[in-house]
């Protein structure tokens, strides 16, 4: 059974790898945005300093975010939304596979492939930039290892959250609108709009325990040493608990949505 999902994952993965030219133009854009954001937050951090978040750390945080942009963005797999609104989803019903798992492997495959195509080059270029503007080395080897675990958790969390867009699309029949709602909420709470370490402490105390920050914020903060190893381990455990909980919730919601589905058109 698991083999079929692995097959879907590999198919989507290979499909996404075809878009190399798109990836290169994406990399150029990501580099530009990275620089722009670093210059912006530099202006803030020059005015006033934040504990445990120096300009050098901020630059690394931004670059990691840009490098893993493809996985941070909460977006369901291509064609899924369209298949729901145009009715093609009914072909998926006839397969003897769990729909949630099919969509999950599709989305995950695309996210992993487009991340792998982009991140090495961005990290290399960012590491070549001067200190304070570029990516610095991780604070320690354990921090790097924890960061990698965190990124793996992040890509799964991102996919799990993306499944809620699928559910919302069933409810609203508007693919764009549903995607916008979920990605706006998670963008703000996962540090994509502004880096979470630059938010007021009281706000951080809440956001740190919500599932969104595990998509991208936590691994980067472990890397730059803003979150220590012990705290990092505790937070990773919380993140995995959220992942399990939200995946189950997503499965239940989509199951109930599917029961009431009326196929549009034919």
């Amino acid at each position, binding site marked *: 059974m698991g083999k079929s999902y692995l097959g879907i994952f590999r198919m989507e993965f290979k499909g996404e790898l075809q878009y190399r030219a798109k990836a290169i*133009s994406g990399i*150029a*854009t990501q580099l530009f945005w990275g620089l722009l954001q670093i210059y912006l937050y530099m202006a803030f951090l020059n005015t006033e300093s934040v504990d445990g978040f120096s300009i050098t750390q901020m630059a690394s945080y931004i670059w990691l975010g840009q490098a893993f942009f493809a996985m941070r963005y909460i977006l369901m797999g291509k064609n899924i939304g369209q298949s729901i609104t145009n009715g093609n989803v009914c072909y998926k019903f006839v397969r003897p596979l769990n729909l949630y798992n099919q969509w999950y492997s599709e989305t995950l495959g695309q996210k992993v492939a487009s991340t792998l195509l982009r991140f090495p080059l961005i990290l290399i270029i960012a590491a070549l930039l001067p200190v304070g503007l570029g990516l610095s080395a991780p604070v320690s080897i354990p921090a790097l290892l924890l960061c990698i675990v965190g990124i793996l958790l992040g890509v799964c969390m991102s996919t799990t959250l993306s499944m809620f867009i699928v559910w919302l699309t069933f409810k609203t*029949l508007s693919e764009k609108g549903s995607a916008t709602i979920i990605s706006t909420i998670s963008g703000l709470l996962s540090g994509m709009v502004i880096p979470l370490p630059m938010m007021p402490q009281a706000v951080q105390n809440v956001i740190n325990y919500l599932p969104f920050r595990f998509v991208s914020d936590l691994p980067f903060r472990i890397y730059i040493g803003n979150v220590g190893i012990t705290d990092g381990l505790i937070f990773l455990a919380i993140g995995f608990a959220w992942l399990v909980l939200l995946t189950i919730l997503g499965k239940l919601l989509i199951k109930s949505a599917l029961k009431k589905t009326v196929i549009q058109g034919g």
Partner: protein
Amino acid sequence: MLYTKYLKMHMHSSFQYRANMAFIAITQALVNIGEVLGVWMLFLQFDSVGGWTFYQSLLMMGVIYTVFSFTECFARGYDEFPKLIKSGEFDRMLIRPVGIHYQIFGSKIEFTKLARMLLGIVLSVIALVNMNIDWNVWKVLVLIATYICGCSVIFGLFVLSAGISIYTVENLEFLNIFTNGSKEVAYYPINIYAKWLARFFTFVIPVACFNYLPLSFLTGTGSVPMWLCGVAPLFGMLFMIPCIIFFNLSLKRYKSTGT
């Protein structure tokens, strides 16, 4: 008039799916509300940046939201120009006995963008009320000119990238750096950025003319002479002229994609 016919046609087709249109418009505005919340929280943590406070920054966001979505709504044809070329619609336009710019304007009007524009106006008003400005006639005029200047600069950028896409056919993401980049830098008074970046967005793409310079004029602060800040929006409006000339010149070299 022909344009009113275009307007009626697009209105008619958009309003066929009223609920869907409202949903998309509201969710689009939601993205911007998310951004405003982010900036608000940033200013809770940092009281000021480069001497500017939250409401001054909020005015900048209000201005860019208003002008960008207004231009997106009515000049969408330029924004999505590669689509017109690829679909062959542009070839059809060329054989009609009506001005080409007229037809590009009429090819698409996206009313959903107006929700964002409304948000921009609301944000501008909130910011202006909280800024304690000593109003006089000149300041009112400069403020109005700021919005017109913003629209024309963004329009110029749309026309410029449409002109380039005559050569490239594809919509290059590289070009989005200029349009979206100009939008993103304009969220804050741009003199907070590094000098070379601020200069680029003053002298090459005149974002400063509807951003930092008129803001200086309204608040009466800054190092640039006041009269220069006041006339800056007028200068900024000129940016679209070379863009349109470039587009028209490129048009002479246009080759159909053959569809």
